[in-house]
């Protein structure tokens, strides 16, 4: 009964999903680590006129970029409130991620300081001729191939988990001003410069963590973490064991996680992580939190990828 209702709601809400896997043949003698990635996500909003854009799910945007020293993944979650001002909230995070991707590909960054990618990306954003307005959170994970270490930077309520042998061994910390108001990068129109919450890119929290082959890194926006508990996520990831067709598996798992989160976000009776933290903040509510969902799943791998 419940599933029929859910099905109906899903029909009502158009969603988009994309499947993407990226490979890169790696023929170095010492075989440094690299990331096998899969991405999936859903847009919460009706997408009538909005054409599907590369690297976005609704107001979320992400990127996957590789250069000689590092594999870098990142997500940014646009603040939807700008829609009321007639501004497309997805433009800001999309441009931010595109610029971060270019910075990586063009070697204009140090993997050891991923916060500087966010900062430089934000500065580049201000260097565009097009006046861009909006705000977004940002989370970046960079795997230094030779050092076998991930360097991360997080600003706002997107986040990542590093899962090893069925356990979360490293995670990001949420940065919020107050309930449901994350730290964010913003460019406001001149008339509202004083009213808009804008955090400096240097507020980003940075960590580093040594990873091993077989570790799984999950990067997601709040749409994922608000609807799916860590245990459920870990559960999905531990099921992914087979070493064959790694990339297909990673992609399928990412898709399954995103679908589950999407499904639960429309469940009015589900006691979601979001509802729990709302209760902590003194707000009584139940159910999932309909939001744009982006999942990037990356498996730390050593073997040369099959093409």
């Amino acid at each position, binding site marked *: 009964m419940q599933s029929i209702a859910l099905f109906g709601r899903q029909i009502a809400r158009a969603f988009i999903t994309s499947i993407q896997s990226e490979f890169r043949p790696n023929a170095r003698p010492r075989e440094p680590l690299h990331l096998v990635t899969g991405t999936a996500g859903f847009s919460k909003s009706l997408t009538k006129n909005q054409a599907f854009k590369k690297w976005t799910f609704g107001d979320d945007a992400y990127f996957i970029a590789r250069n000689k020293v590092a594999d870098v993944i990142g997500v940014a979650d646009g603040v939807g409130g700008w829609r009321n001002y007639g501004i497309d909230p997805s433009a800001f995070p999309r441009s931010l991620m595109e610029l971060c991707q270019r910075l990586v590909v063009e070697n204009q960054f140090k993997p050891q300081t991923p916060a500087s990618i966010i900062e430089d990306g934000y500065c580049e954003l201000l*260097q565009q001729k097009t006046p861009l307005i909006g705000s977004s959170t940002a989370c970046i994970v960079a795997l230094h191939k030779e050092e076998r270490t991930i360097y991360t930077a997080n600003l706002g309520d997107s986040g990542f988990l590093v899962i090893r042998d069925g356990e979360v061994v490293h995670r990001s910390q949420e940065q919020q001003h107050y309930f449901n108001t994350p730290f964010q990068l913003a460019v406001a129109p*001149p008339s509202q410069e004083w009213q808009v919450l804008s955090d400096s890119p240097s507020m980003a929290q940075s960590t580093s963590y040594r990873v091993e082959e077989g570790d799984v890194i999950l990067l997601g926006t709040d749409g994922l973490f608000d609807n799916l508990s860590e245990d459920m996520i870990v559960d999905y990831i531990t099921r992914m064991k087979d070493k064959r067709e790694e990339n297909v598996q990673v992609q399928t798992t990412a898709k399954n996680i995103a679908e589950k989160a999407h499904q639960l976000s429309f469940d009015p009776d589900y006691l979601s992580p979001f509802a729990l933290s709302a209760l902590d903040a003194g707000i009584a509510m139940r159910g999932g939190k309909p939001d744009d969902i982006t999942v990037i799943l990356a498996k730390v791998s050593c073997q040369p990828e099959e093409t």
Partner: protein
Amino acid sequence: MEELLAENALTISVPEAPGSLGDKGSLRSESLRNQNIIVQFAKEVIDFSSQYGNETSISYTARNLAGGANIFPSYGDFTQACVFRTYGPWWKKAPSARKPFERTPKTLLSDDYIEITFATKVYPIKLDIYETYNPGAIVRLLACDMNVGTDVDTGLSVCQWVTLWQGRPEESTRQSRIFSPPLKQCPFPTDVLRLELCHDLAPYYVDLDCVQLHGTTEPVNNFSCMRLHSEQFYVKDGDRDNVMSIMTGALKDLSLEPNPKESNTENQYISKEMKQITRENETVKEEMKNLKQTNNSDSVSNNGFFDLLPGEVIQIILSNMDLSGLCNMAQTCSHLKRHCYDSLQYIELNLQPHWTQVTDTVLYSLMKRCSHLLRLNLSWCKNLLLTINGVDAFLQCCGSELTCLYLSTCKFLNNDCLMSVVQYCPNLRELDIDSCLQVDSTGFSQLKNLTMLQRLNLYRTYIDTMSLTAIIRSCHDLQHLNLGSCTCLHFMDDIAEELGNNCRKLKSLDLWRSRSISHEGLSHIYTSCRDLEEIDLGWCPELKSRTLCFVELTQNCTKLKKLFLTANRTVCDEDLLAIAKHCKEMEQLDILGTREVSAFAAQRVLENCKKLIMFDVSFCSGIDFPMMETWKKEFPHCEIKKSYQN
């Protein structure tokens, strides 16, 4: 070989060309059979004259020319492109424009250049230039040979530049294109290329995406893909109608004689004549001899009509010739040589178009003739050709009367060299040292001794606040000051205050991409420098319209002819209405990238500023394209710009 190959290079085997075996030695045809064509994108940008973007940025900067295609086949104004600082004829019409030099050859018209390196040295066969916005500006391609050897006298390594193609700018087709001009055979393998651009016909900024070089590791015997176009050697000049042009024309013909041996080396007319200057006392080239002989046989005892002409008339005729013509003319006969060597013919010396040939020796030989030199342009001259010693000696000899010295992007200019400029040229009124990155505060602090300076161009240098303050305090006559893209000026408000206190004659001020100028600094300018005709405040993020700084600027400086407020997101209708009301002299206005202006206010500017010839409203969301079309009909005298990304 394989190590040398760039990652993005791919190799194609060349099928053996039929007929290539004919008269060639067996060894060479053997090498041709094994010939591979290497195709590679530029690895790195090593030098350039200007760029639109911020020095440390990846948006609209010169370094975007390296690597593969990011934009092509899209057409439009994209951030990933290599973009230069200026476009079109506008900059040359602004109050800050330099007076053009006499004797500048009309065919050498480059405004900007960019130099790139490739991973593998090749003999270029084909060069693909991906032009993704306003194509048609490329006028010259050159290749560099860094391994010519060392100078016998100085022991320094020298380099050689050869023009592979030269042409005229074209009207933009408003489509992206791959431009592959027919190249001249390059006599050496090269990994350094230079593109020169002329922006005169560009309707807006010129964007280049990438450059792809096709070449072989061994010289190609049948260079069939490149027929020699006579016009690429030199000068089509139909427009010169004085007597001399006949003679120079004859000289040109002589030097254009298709000489296959020479086409491999320095085939350029101009290089020849420059060499001839240096070889004055040596045996003159054969064709020159011939010409002299014919001259002599016609009139051994007299010089024909030239003896009848008063010396002043000959001087006037000579004054119409470009520098190469003048140098050539000196070779014809002793009578004319005397006139050609007259120091009054060398009041102005523009060596920028001849930068490939300007060496120490050339300067030494010119030295004797330049005792009354007033203006000297050594911009773009190369440090591998020209050394500090050469410049030093030249300025010591000819610098005392010099009033204008242009040294844009001169790598040889370091602190020592700048000190000798200050020492030997005390009368300098104009000094351009933009993009001279070898100079630091030690050198800049010397400039305060040039108290007569009226014009100082410090675009893209490491000038610091202290040195600049000292300069401003001692140069009260400053009229034109360019501080665009100076990354070391952290306290622009202090600079502005000094300018307001000391330089009340200021006519033009360029603060492009100053991160620290705020309304407080600007207020010192507009309250004191009422004669201001031009101010560039593009990409100055700390200037906010709500402080009314723009309104007060227009109220106080009513003589403004050029105002650039590029990418100031706060510019609003109020500012435009103030411009419309107060700035009747306005000719060029740029308000790119603001969401706060309406079509109504922009129209008021168009209606009230009758002299407006250029109005950039790109990326202003309040002004749409249909509106633009209406305006174009209504205000035909004004070029309204609205850039776009497709």
